[in-house]
């Protein structure tokens, strides 16, 4: 904030030249806010993805070969490709205007379903990021959580409510322990949590892959590495009837978001977490047991990630296999970063990623766009979020705003 007013171009919209020199204009504040950065990053990602859609589209490629002879063909083909892709994405993720009856709103519920594990794992990671722990291990924590939930789901036979609660708690404990290992090692030996959690991801994958070949997890009488389906009572209750897959896990995820907000903003424990995240040495000097905070943070983060894994099994999949976690744990890192590690942001980011995930099948089948496009969109968003100045550099809005006195170089970054 050391930039001074005389750097700014003359025609500023709010030229209140008061003695305090650092007061940025309203326009400056809005355009430099993280919300604007995130939204613009998403728009740029969609724009870049559109270029790829055109590049991969056979009709557009044909038309490009004679673009100077008849440019209209190319632009028509390109527009068709982009329109088909994004309308399919919209129809798959938000509202299917071509469907009949209740199926029209099914896409938005699918988006919510897909976002559940991402919200939970993302919340856990967010806590870690704000406490100065870069936990890359959500993937492993999701996986052991899912395995524990599946195990408790098909071995036990408990009454309604009790069974699903037990299975979820089992997942929380399993995920917590898995992350707790990294927290404990960091607290005791100073081992980098980044390395340890990455390694624990591999260990989790090979551990469950092994268990799936033994009687512990494998379906009896089968040679397939897949568990039996969990009991009826262990399934998350459906919220909107059997036509929709939306399950109570979505409410659990929202409650967890509120809980995390309370933990981080209102509780003493959360204050300690944030203090350690802000400055470990200062926190230690202030009498906070930093070692214990490391372990606590990882326990909470792992518990949430484990619960996210449980939602995948108890909410939708019903059976568990080595690939059940998909890329939830890694997507959740992006979700937490995109959500700025705040509960509300994480929920919104998870919904965005859930929408991309829910919309991609229709995008493939209706528009013939490769599913990899979704990965590109996600990756570009991450890239841009990591570099806000890059967003401002690429953004048309920010360029246009310079005409009205906006100064890109003045941004607080």
């Amino acid at each position, binding site marked *: 904030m050391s930039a001074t007013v005389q750097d700014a171009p003359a025609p500023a919209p709010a030229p209140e030249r008061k003695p305090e020199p650092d007061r940025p204009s309203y326009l400056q504040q809005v355009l430099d806010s993280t919300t604007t950065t995130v939204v613009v990053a998403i728009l740029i990602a969609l724009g870049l993805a559109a270029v790829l859609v055109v590049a991969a589209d056979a009709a557009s490629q044909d038309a490009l070969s004679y673009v100077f002879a008849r440019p209209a063909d190319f632009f028509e083909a390109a527009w068709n490709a982009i329109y088909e892709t994004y309308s399919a994405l919209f129809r*798959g993720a938000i509202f299917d205007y071509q469907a009949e009856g209740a199926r029209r709103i099914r896409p938005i519920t699918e988006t919510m379903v897909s976002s559940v594990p991402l919200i939970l794992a993302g919340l856990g990671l967010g806590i870690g990021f704000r406490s100065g722990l870069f936990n890359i291990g959500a993937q492993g924590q999701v996986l052991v959580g899912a395995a524990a939930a599946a195990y408790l789901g098909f071995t036990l036979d408990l009454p309604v409510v009790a069974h699903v609660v037990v299975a979820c708690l089992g997942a929380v404990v399993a995920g917590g322990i898995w992350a707790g290992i990294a927290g404990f090692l960091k607290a005791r030996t100073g081992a980098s949590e980044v390395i340890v959690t990455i390694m624990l991801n591999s260990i989790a994958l090979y551990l469950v892959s092994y268990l799936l070949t033994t009687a512990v997890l494998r379906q009896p009488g089968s040679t397939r*590495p897949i568990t039996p389906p969990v009991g009826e009572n262990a399934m998350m209750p459906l919220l909107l009837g059997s036509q929709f897959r939306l399950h109570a896990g979505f409410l659990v995820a929202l409650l967890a978001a509120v809980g995390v907000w309370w933990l981080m903003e209102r509780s003493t424990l959360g204050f300690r977490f944030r203090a350690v995240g802000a400055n470990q040495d200062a926190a230690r000097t202030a009498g906070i047991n930093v070692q214990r905070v490391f372990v606590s943070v990882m326990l909470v983060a792992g518990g949430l990630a484990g619960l996210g894994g449980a939602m*995948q099994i108890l909410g939708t999949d019903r059976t568990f296999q080595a690939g059940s976690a*998909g890329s939830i744990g890694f997507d959740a890192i992006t979700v937490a970063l995109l959500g700025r590690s705040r509960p509300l942001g994480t929920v919104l980011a998870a919904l965005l990623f859930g929408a991309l995930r829910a919309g991609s099948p229709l995008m493939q089948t209706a528009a013939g766009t490769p599913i990899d496009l979704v990965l590109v969109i996600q990756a570009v968003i991450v890239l841009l979020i990591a570099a806000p100045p890059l967003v401002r550099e690429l953004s048309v809005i920010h360029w246009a705003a310079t005409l009205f006195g906006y100064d890109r170089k003045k941004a607080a970054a």
Partner: protein
Amino acid sequence: MKKIIRVAALGGAVALALAACGSAPEETNETSGGDETSATVDFTACMVSDEGGFDDASFNESGFKGLEQAESELGITIKTAESTDPGQYTTNVDSMVQQGCNLIIGVGFALEDAVQAGAEANPDIEFALVDSAFSDADFNPVTLDNAKPLLFNTQEAAYLAGYLAAGISETHKLATFGGQPFPSVTIFMDGFVDGAAAYAEESGVATTVVGWDKEAQNGSMIGNFSDTEAGRTTSEQFIADGADVILPVAGPVGSGALNAASQAESTAVIWVDSDGYLQPANEQYKGLILTSVMKQIQTAVFDTIKSSVDGEFTADPYVGTLANGGVDIAPYHDWEANVPAELSAKIDELRQAIIDGDLVVESPSANAVS
């Protein structure tokens, strides 16, 4: 810096302009005539991959080739959906239903539940599933009126490969490894081990197969179907142990085994799924491929689509066997001269015995179809 960007941009524009100077095709009344004429038959066949994707150089790709063949030869419309994780199987099958597919083919046993649920909910749509039959929650086989399992008695062909390998081996030590312990993988290894054992018994030459224990159903797995480097190091260990014929059952990872074999003296590799000798990717090392254990997924998929287009679809399982050519071993190609005539004759004899039912090759992974 700015100057460099400008020059680069100008260069790019010039290149683009030159590339784009082609003349426009004649304007015709029927818009985009070339593209739409392919769909002459009003039939849509759809395919959902498992998490391997259609470029896995293995069974997803074989299935996809069958679909493409149907598109070009039968003039139908095709739609595909790749899955990136098991959570998407149900949604992918569901979106195919939404897209009005006439026939939906799931590739891989992992899609069993999704295809089964789709078939039960949509009795007017036909389904097929590669590499798995259908079963209920208690794992009892079930038959669905509108869903056809496409199965392969791969162990029969693998048995021949095992016998051949044991006959060729100078060290009398063979090796095999898999990608992951899936039934569609271990079925190769079961047949291979049995074939080698049969040779040992007949010839009286003790032959060992490392990498797979059929009794315990346990052996060498590299953990995925993509890590070629792991395939290479695993093969190098086998070669160092004295093995001179290797059967990698892990799709594209087999090229790692070829690489390892190329560094060693007189070591051969047996390819899986398709004839590895003919694959462009293996051009450099094709001389090392003794034979291939082939599974005609492409043919099975194409035939299923064809019968569905002709209105002759039945839910009876297709079982690829040596008898119907659904599985077999590939020609020996460059190894032709190295395979003794009597061994080659013996292989033909065994093939006939299996076809006639005089010899039954067992595998716990074989599909129990009545």
